[in-house]
């Protein structure tokens, strides 16, 4: 019986656990701007557009744009796609964050990312006045559902800095105590305030010659956002009907520096990455399968063994374009008795 009652108590706890009695505690720390997997967060404002509108009437649609990432968006494209039989743009005022009109139903916008002085990132709302056309085409339909699509395309960047251990005496021939050790599993990272994240860095030290070693890094990347990666040079095409191929999707330029951090002016040694972007040292990661990829970077010039074992920052910079779409359905109602 005691066993059964104990089990009952456990089950009661489990049931209670469904809802939980815990209270959330927020840690009192500084804001880490390099945290999170969002970049641009787009949403239609509630009731803008409204769920139902009458034909031959104007109504407002408002899109809130929030840069939740740590990188500023410059010259991002925002395209509004409407069913032209039923809707048209009446007015789209160009005011912050919009910069200019790029085409029919297409605008350019800028939006600052999170920073120490702006820890929330820029938040703006753009308002569009739309017109529901007269439903002359549908003689007998009393309602017609139509979709409003908003597609954003912009260039973005991920910056990750992690301290790595450079062990020039991998076989421990010197027999002295080392200041750091290489973790065989590598170092896991969660996010860096951008949709494409560096998720793991594995360090290996390759012997180069008798006097030097070449540090070798296996870097794992993942698209953790809900959009699609495009080449940073195809941002405009992604938001219009411009030519685009599969090679333009899901690739990221990877630049890796040793002994460099994200501080301005700090020069480091750029690593040679593979697969490589043509003509330059930067790597090219293809995040197609399961939205992730691995890239290998090596410091070809090597490090003198005499330098001993030391810790140093590894700085990774990812450049890419990013695109995502939101949609909202509006039902156009016919004015009866016409």
């Amino acid at each position: 019986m005691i066993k059964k009652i104990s089990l009952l108590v456990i089950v009661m706890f489990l049931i209670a656990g469904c809802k939980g009695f815990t209270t959330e505690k927020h840690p009192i720390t500084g804001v880490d701007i390099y945290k999170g997997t969002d970049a641009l967060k787009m949403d239609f404002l509630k009731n803008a557009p409204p769920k139902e509108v009458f034909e031959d009437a104007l109504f407002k649609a408002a899109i809130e744009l929030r840069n939740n990432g740590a990188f500023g968006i410059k010259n991002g494209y925002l395209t509004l796609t409407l069913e032209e039989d039923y809707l048209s743009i009446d007015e789209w005022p160009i005011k912050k964050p919009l910069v200019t009109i790029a085409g029919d139903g297409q605008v350019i916008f800028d939006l600052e990312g999170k920073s120490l002085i702006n820890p929330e990132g820029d938040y703006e709302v753009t308002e569009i006045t739309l017109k529901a056309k007269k439903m002359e085409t549908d003689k007998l339909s009393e309602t017609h559902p139509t979709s409003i699509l908003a597609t954003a395309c912009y260039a973005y960047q991920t910056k990750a800095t992690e301290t790595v251990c450079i062990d020039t005496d991998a076989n421990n021939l010197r027999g002295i105590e080392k200041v750091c050790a290489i973790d065989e599993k590598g170092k896991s990272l969660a996010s860096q305030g951008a949709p494409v994240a560096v998720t793991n860095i594995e360090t290996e030290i390759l012997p180069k010659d008798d006097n030097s070693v070449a540090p070798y890094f296996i870097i794992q990347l993942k698209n953790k956002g809900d959009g699609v990666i495009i080449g940073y040079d195809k941002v405009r095409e992604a938001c219009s009907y411009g030519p685009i191929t599969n090679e333009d999707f899901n690739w990221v330029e990877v630049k890796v520096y040793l002994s460099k951090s994200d501080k301005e002016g700090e020069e480091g040694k750029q690593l040679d990455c593979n697969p490589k972007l043509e003509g330059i040292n930067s790597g090219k990661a293809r995040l197609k399968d399961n939205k992730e990829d691995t890239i290998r970077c090596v410091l070809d010039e090597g490090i003198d063994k005499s330098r001993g074992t030391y810790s140093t920052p590894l700085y990774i910079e990812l450049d890419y374009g990013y695109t995502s779409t939101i949609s909202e359905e509006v039902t156009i109602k016919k004015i009866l008795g016409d």
Partner: protein
Amino acid sequence: MKKESFCEVNNFIIKGDKMGTFDEKKFKTDLIKKLAEEVDGIGHTRAEEIITHKDVAPHLKTFGTFDDLHAHIQAMGTDKFSASTKTALDEYYKKAVKATERTAKKEEEIEETEEEESKRLSDMKEEDLTIEKKERLEELKGLKQREKIEKEESLWERHQRLKKLHETAHFHEDPGERVKAKEELDKYKGNRFSSGFAHIATHYDAIKISGAWWLLFAFLLFLLDLFTGFSGYNLEFLWNATVYEKAIRGPIGAFVILYLIFYIFSWIFGGRTNIRGFIIRIIVLLLFSALSVASGNIGTTFHLVFALLYWQMVLLRFNENKEEDKASADLTLIEVMLFDFFIIDGFANLTRIPLDDRSKALITAVSILPVWFFYIAIWEKRRLEMPWWRTAIVFITAAILIFSVAAESMDFVYADAPEINRFKELKDKAIKAPQNAGKYLTNQITRQLEFATGGYYEGQVEKQENEPLGVYIKDIEAADKEFYEDERISVWATLEAKTLDNEQPVNVVLSCEAYESDEEDDKKGEGIEGTVTPDYFKEEEKNFMIDALEEEDIKCEFEPDSLKEGTQKIKIFAGFNFLTKAYLKTYFVTNDRLRAMRREEIDVFDFYRIKDKNPVAKFTNGPVKLGIETKEPPIGISSEYDTKPMIGVMLDINPGWKGKIKEIKELILYIPDSMELDTDSCDPSGTFGISDESEYEGYSAYKLQDWVKKKKELIDIEEPKSFRCRLNIAADKVSKVLGDSPFATKYFRVSADYIFETEKSASVTVRESKDFNVHFSPTTATSSEKEIVCIGKHPEKNIKNATYLFYKKDAYKDYELVKEGTITCSAKECKVSYFTDSYPVKKDDTIKCVMEAKLKTKDGAEEIETDLTIIEIKNSLPKIEKIAFEPEKAEPTASLKCIGNFSDKDNDVVTATYKFEEGYFDADNAVCEKENNMYKCITKEIPAEELSTGETIRCTITPHDGEENGIAAVKEIVVS
């Protein structure tokens, strides 16, 4: 050896000397088991060898007891079996013989002793009998009585007696009676078959009663479905996460948690729980209540409750002894529920027959839905053996199903069945049901073929408030239950109409015809024509015009004597012009983007947040279903080359409507002006042609060409007809299609203006008239008629002779006597002819026949009765005299024309229309000239350059006399 019935072995209920219904496989298995138990050392394998032996198996059913089986084996010889089986059998028979001898001896001794004791006690004097001795004497008498009864009663009677004893022992109000019955039953102890038999019989009987109720409940569940509209679910529904969320978060979730707590408490304090049953309950509750909550259909809850009750109260109860049986009960529950909930959609998906909502609901609700009903009636038959009325219910339900399937093709369900002869009509439907079911299937197969060949373009009825649209004939019923031949026969109906466009009125042309009910496939024009009123536009080819929503009472009348005695089917036809519009939404994206995204495994629709991934054409309600289809969206277009995706349009009769599309007046395809229709790509080329007028801004209109509309296959359309062409999206128009957007939504629109003819029928009974009655034969006559016969008849009395008078009247004069005389009659009928050669008639003349008959009554007296009948001479159709090509030999070097010569009995002016088909297409009015009472109608010439050697040219000329079309004349010629 025990003398058991084979049926007892198998636990079957014995009815008289015959076995009840049995499962042969189980019967054999039980026999093998029993034999293995009976015969020491024989084992299961050898027993199986015996039972399945070719010389034994066929005789099993004929054996009454195991003795018979063993006698048969001994007679055929044990040598026929394997050595080990033979040894086992021989040993068993040896032992059995000895045992039988011993038992017989012992029984004889016992019997003698009891006999002697009984005799001795009976012979004793009353005063010498002690209480014990008296009781012993009574016992012996009872024993004898029971033996006597057992010897005389049949197995069935014994079963009934033991069953009754069993019931008394357990349920009788009087404890004394219960004790007595128990004592009596105790005497059967040791005879496990007798007592077990009684127990099983009682148990089975209880189940039998509840089984009958369950069947009734299942039937009620089926009826409820017709009201709740429960029609099962799509399997995909199961994977929809929101369904579970709704279910688990809702009251069901609370119920599950409460049940969980209750279960744990009962486990701790009650002691007896069933983990497996609990898990099953939870799964079933979660799964199906999710459906119930998410769908919001109360019918789902009914089905769920029924299933759980049946599982708990029958399946588990019946299988309460064995664990594997319980598992089987759970499995049964899940299987039947899966069928019950998902079979319909599975069926619809399997056949890929595009069903509209109403057909689906009908098929679902009536023909396949009663899963539980059929399961209980068929699969549970043995367990829940039920009385005769179970079979009756099954038959009635089966009949309803046949009616329903038949109704799909006969529009029976939606018809307001006429009050009169309803039963007869039902009977007729029942007789024709298989035939109609066949028709329905053929129809579906035709659609399936059209679908398979890519020509069936799907469409859905546009949802709108003021449905339905079209012209409906409703509430058709005869003015009386029965009519006499010499009475005017009237059938009433209500015509209801709702037009699509108030600015485009609907012209309704009404007609009605009578057919003898046993006629197969009665077609318009083959019956006896009646007159329909009202006819507000006598001079025009329409009865009335409808502007918006209107209702009109219409009457179809038949002249006295025009319909023969018997059951007549009267059909009212309503032809009307109607407009159906349809649109199809589709998506466009550049080809390179589409390809790139597919290669990168990015779903275009998911990326652009498109929910309606495969839009179906929507059409306005009405008699015609208008479908449109294009290449599967999104359609990829290119700025480097022209893209030519396919577009198809299909016309079909909208399910629920009965009738045909008489003619397509206009079929217009509207294409967004950023693209065009490649008219040369249509099949045949040039089916559609561009039109200057477009109803919609931003669209180009393409009309179905006149020569196509006049094609034979587009007249009287009853089966789906499709048209297929290619679009042409020029490379330089990509920016116009997409704008500055990577993705665009466009619409294709179709408008069809056509004449539809719908029909509705009612049956009337026509009886022979009671009195002397006169009528004409034929009942309708034209000016071409050579002879019109006036017939006088009496249903009962013989007619000696009759005098007759023929009067004639034209539009300008009153009746004039034209012929008179006396005729002798044969028995009950007199006939006299009116020859039009002698007394010419023309259209609109009226002939009256008055007949005075001398009748002989049964007592020999003479009576005179008079009656008259009138016939109006109708228009004669223009008649083809000759059709020929000119020149007679067609050659590519000379132009060709077609000439038709027509005559008209009424001297009406004849005009004609013509059409050329096969090798050359053209249609227009012919030029007609009168030459010697004949009209010579000449077609336009076919230019010589249009003629190619080997081609066949078909010429059809249809004459018209100002009132009606005559029979078309057709001539073919091969260009040589």
